């Protein structure tokens, strides 16, 4: 069930129209999920923000970059007015900011986690499967990278890149994506390595080997499918973690950078204006961030449960 749940999410990200339909392929997954209402709500919230990130135009007609200083500091007007969430000090529409800010935050999270899983699974499989010097090198690397916390590494490296020019959404998240990936793969490697060690001596794998299957085939067909389950449970929680880290980096001015908008940038701006009576400037982006993170954390928790039912 766990694999399917994440696949549901991933598919939803690519084709949101299909995901909602709940066709026969996903029938099983949905039936299992229906037992836990909080998981459904979390999935819907995550889905909602994914749709926002993919199709911001559905939710606002304003351009977050087009700010009229004459409209500066309008408090929230509700959904009838021109600026439902109000405007900030330079007159930028807050709703547009929050809507367009979803994309860099979520894109960064998916890129970082996707790449980390890819690297982690590959290295973990190689290390667990071949052992010997391959394992020595990979395990030692894991140990070394683990000593430097993700955030510290990001602070160091991104500060060095401070002056570099960037352009476009992808350009502005490229640096943080690379750095966060560079220090984000170790957990998966450890889990997969341990899992491969366990799986590779199981009878059916030994049987495949005796029958002359190639190493690659054994790894891909027999060993990996087992390991994927463990890793899958880590994915939603990791996504939530990257979204939070992005906010910190943006707050320090070394993550996604203006003129691009991200939740982190809005939070950073909003906290400066907080004391001046414009609380909503902080609370709207912060609320979106917390909701998204909460949704992914609940999904991760449900997956962990499904994979390790003895702890229930």
């Amino acid at each position: 069930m766990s694999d399917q749940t994440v696949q549901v999410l991933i598919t939803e990200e690519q084709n949101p129209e299909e995901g909602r339909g709940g066709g026969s392929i996903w029938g099983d997954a949905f039936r299992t999920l229906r037992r836990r209402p909080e998981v459904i709500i979390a999935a819907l919230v995550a889905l909602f923000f994914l749709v926002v990130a993919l199709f911001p135009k559905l939710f606002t007609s304003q351009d977050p970059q087009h700010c009229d200083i004459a409209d500066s500091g309008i408090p929230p007007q509700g959904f009838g007015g021109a600026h439902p969430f109000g405007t900030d000090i330079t007159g930028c529409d807050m709703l547009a900011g929050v809507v367009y800010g979803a994309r860099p935050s979520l894109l960064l999270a998916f890129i970082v986690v996707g790449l980390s899983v890819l690297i982690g699974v590959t290295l973990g499989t190689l290390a667990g499967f071949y052992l010997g010097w391959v394992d020595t090198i990979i395990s030692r690397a894991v140990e070394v990278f683990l000593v430097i916390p993700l955030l510290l590494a990001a602070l160091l490296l991104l500060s060095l890149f401070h002056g570099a020019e960037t352009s476009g959404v992808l350009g502005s998240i490229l640096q943080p994506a690379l750095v966060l990936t560079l220090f984000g793969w170790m957990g998966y490697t450890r889990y997969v390595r341990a899992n491969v060690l366990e799986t590779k001596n199981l009878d059916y794998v030994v049987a495949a080997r005796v029958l002359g299957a190639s190493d690659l085939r054994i790894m891909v067909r027999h060993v990996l499918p087992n390991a994927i389950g463990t890793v899958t449970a880590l994915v939603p929680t990791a996504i939530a973690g990257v979204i939070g880290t992005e906010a910190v980096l943006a707050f320090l001015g070394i993550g996604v950078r203006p003129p691009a908008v991200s939740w982190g940038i809005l939070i950073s701006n909003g906290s400066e204006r907080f004391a001046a009576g414009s609380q909503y400037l902080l609370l709207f982006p912060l609320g979106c961030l917390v909701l998204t993170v909460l949704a992914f954390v609940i999904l991760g928790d449900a997956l962990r449960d499904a994979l390790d039912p003895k702890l229930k």
Partner: protein
Amino acid sequence: MGRYVLRRVLQGILTLFLVIFLLHLLTTFAIQLNGNPALAFFGDRVPTQAQLSAVSARFGLDDPCYNQLGNPCFGPFVNRLKDYLSGDFGTNLRGREITSIVATAAPNSFRLFLVVTATWLVVGMFLGSTAARRRGKVVDHGIRGFSVMIDALPVFVMLLVYRYVITVPVYTWAKKQFGSDSFIALLFKPSFDSDHPMITVIIPGILLGLAGSAAFIRLVRAAQLENYNSDHVRAARSKGLSERHVRVFHIVRNSSIPVATAVGIVFTEALAGAVITEGVMNIYGMGGLLWNAVRDSDVSLIIGIVTLLAIVTIVVMILVDLLYAALDPRIRYE
């Protein structure tokens, strides 16, 4: 036991060497890609060539290898190692020794971690054990929900909300009610006060500790559950020992082994959290220094502090391994 300690310490030194080398490689490539960080020294001014090379020389960035992309710069690495060995971690942009800056800041970080550790122990151990003991009951579900909520609130968000939404009104009220030097007013002071270093780190420390305690709660619960159903606990009960005795000497004691191994990982996370906490709450500690160094683009200070924190982490990891060996005789007599 002696050999085990020796082996772990030697391994730790090797890891430390590799970590320093990794940091060196990464900064080198970043400089080669991105240009001389000494430029930051001049802020918005455009320096003359002579000024720039003088500053570069001071920070050890004058080696030509920094202009050759892909060159691992072994020469400067050896120099840096020598400096580190003689206790020289460089200077910040204003020329102050990093070691002397850190010496004044470290005690505050230590105070913060004292509070953090206490929170881990109290919240993590207590809630984790309670959840395990009342497995499947309402309390268990409540604690589980609590740990999920903690996970959903990154330290950063918690602190922002605390600092901007909670402290201001509470502090104003407490100041009016009890005076600005009263315990309650200081407790809720929105930023660090170097005259009252301990009181003003209590709440930030608790918040940071809470963030790490979610992992602890889950871990303690899982580890204890495994023991609740184990044969040795059943055997202990068959001896007629009280349930309390069994819990303390067999369940808590045995489950402390897996919990101890996780302390290392949680510690590195807390280190990152400390940077955020000290940054947001203006605490003058190592993390606060780093936070401000990032804001000022003081690369030399950043490298120095990150290296020092890496050393601290390795020391903690070695200590955790020794603790592990002390707790588990099976490791000791390997």
